[in-house]
């Protein structure tokens, strides 16, 4: 049996290993949401957060591009109202919207033969069709992380892309090494999913995180 951490818990845990996320807050009322949003000029993203919420988008639990106090307040309340008991909802995650054309996926998976592996690939809506994914065994050397990036077929995505700057390869390698460190350090880890990892101003930012643990071990 496995158990999943909430998005907020997953992000807190992975931040310790150096995974970069957007500034965000876990709020429990519309008033708190408005207060957080005042610090940013950007439109906001709001998501219901709980340890047991699958299919967030399908259930309409992700609100994107929300602008203005009234809309933020309404969005937050709707999400809180939509929570079901089984969601184990702990609040609403609110963050400024990030914009970027390139999305990747990164994570940790346990291979039945080789054990913990670091996975990196092309994300976004065409990800499955493109199926451009590379895998290495954890722990990674920095050379392995760079080699993983160079092993992707879609190398052109790392260069300047439709008005966006080139991807900072070192920062992307840092992300993979951070995942590798997390895989070595977290007892009972079953999987980590960062999906999507968006390229914002050339730097990778994980917009979502999901950590799955074996039920026998609780997160440290």
């Amino acid at each position, binding site marked *: 049996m496995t158990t999943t951490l909430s998005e907020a818990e997953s992000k807190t845990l992975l931040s310790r290993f150096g995974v970069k996320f957007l500034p965000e807050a876990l709020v429990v009322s519309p008033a708190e949401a408005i207060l957080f949003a005042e610090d940013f000029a950007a439109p906001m993203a709001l998501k219901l957060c709980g340890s047991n919420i699958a299919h967030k988008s399908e259930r309409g639990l992700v609100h994107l591009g929300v602008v203005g106090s009234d809309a933020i307040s309404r969005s937050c309340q709707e999400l809180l109202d939509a929570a079901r008991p089984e969601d184990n909802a702990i609040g609403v995650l609110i963050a400024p919207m990030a914009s970027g054309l390139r999305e990747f996926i990164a994570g940790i998976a346990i*291979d039945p*033969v*080789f*054990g913990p592996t670091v996975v990196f690939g092309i994300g976004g809506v065409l990800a499955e069709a493109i199926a451009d*994914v590379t*895998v*290495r065994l954890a722990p990674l050397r920095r050379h392995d992380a760079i080699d993983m990036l160079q092993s992707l077929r879609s190398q052109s995505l790392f260069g300047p892309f439709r008005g966006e700057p080139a991807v900072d390869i070192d920062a992307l390698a840092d992300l993979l090494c951070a995942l590798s460190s997390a895989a070595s350090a977290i007892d009972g880890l079953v999987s980590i999913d960062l999906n999507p990892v968006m390229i914002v101003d050339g730097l990778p930012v994980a917009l979502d995180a999901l950590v799955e643990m074996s039920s026998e071990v609780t997160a440290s």
Partner: protein
Amino acid sequence: MISTDHFKALFDPRAIVVAGASTHPGKFGFVALHNILSCGYAGEVFATNRERSEVLGRPTLADLTEVPDGVADLVFVCTPAASNPELLRQAAAKGIRAAFIASAGYGESGEDGLKLQSELVELANELDLLVVGPNGQGLVSTPSHLCAQIVAPYPPAGRIGIASQSGNFVSSFMNLSRQSGVGVSRAISVGNAAQVGVIDMLEYYADDTETTVGLVYLEGVAEGRDFADRLEAVCRRMPVVILKGGASGSGAKAAASHTGSLATDDRVFDGMCRQMGAARASSVAEAFDIAAAFATLPVPAGPRVAVVTTVGGWGVLAADATATTNLELVDLPDDLRSTLDGLLPPRWSRNNPIDLAGGETKDTVPAVLDAVVGHSSIDATLVLGMGIQSNQGRLEKEGPFYPDHGLERIVAFHDRQDARYVEVALAASAASNKPVLIASELSVADPSNAAVSAVRDAGRYCFPSAERAVRALHFLNERVRWLKSFSTESLPAR
């Protein structure tokens, strides 16, 4: 504990016993004895046969108790599974350290066989015996002129060490060795790999002075992390080429039923190979190309390649082939270009690929090759179009006008010229310690061609095409990059 001494007993035995020698030429117990006696093994060979029947005109012993004490190191077992425990006890009592078990009826045959197999391993450990197999095809060890296997061929001596989970791929690789002349040091089929597997063989090869490259066929590994760590340690000391079955979904299913291997996502295996420094080949031919390259060429210092060709088309495809590799088709530096201007007619390509445009003569080719191979901006050179003159010579020799009309003289001249071009190319390689790869389809189409023979006689590999040579060179360069990564790695990941 299995030690180096056990592997020495296996690959370089002082004397051998074939247990279960048969009078029937169709049986394994006949073929194994035949092959050991036919390929030059110098040690004493004993054979057991329950009826003490003569086999191949030689007397046999009733069982292992009749073998003299402390003489033999290896027993090659062709007897039924049920009689093997007693046989191993007798072998150990005679001082034998290693057994190759060709007998079937073990793990591959179901629940009962699996039980027999684990009992066999337990007994071997207790007796301090190295046991390879069961259900394996045998082993080859050219330093001892040993062909202890129930299949052909016996390859020429050389530096490639083969280990395989499937005996037939040992044969495939050795057939390519015979064809190309690039030889083998040791080769072994690990069968069900009950006590020792492919990784144990690679560890022995890495320490073996006769072996400089490991060539492996795998279908699966049991303890992945352990395998990966040991593979990396081997790759730090010796290049390893891996061909893996079960890369596709349907291949994985077939592999599971063949060796009982656990399926793993192919991308994981592929990443593991890159990470641990092994060259992952995609076909038997490519695997042998890469192994032959490692066995016969110095590794390049870097990715910069020059292509020298007698005519255009070959160079164009070679240039295309480099595009999908880590290699770099360098722009010719000015000083090299002017050197070549002085040696070639004005119509030469004036860039890389260096197309001699038919301007080659007995003096220009050596001078061009020396200048290119030795130049400081070039790490490796690919030479194409060798052998075309002697190919014409062959047609003339087989035609109705030979040897008249001056044909005898010109045919001999072409043969000498082609051989000389090759010798010059290889001498330039030796002088600069840089790889020079010669590629021609004549290596397959006409192995007797003068250029091909000259490559072969020099102990080098004539690649069957420019693309295949480029691909092999890519893997040489990958290894160089991988080895360098350990010295340039400053600190652990940030």
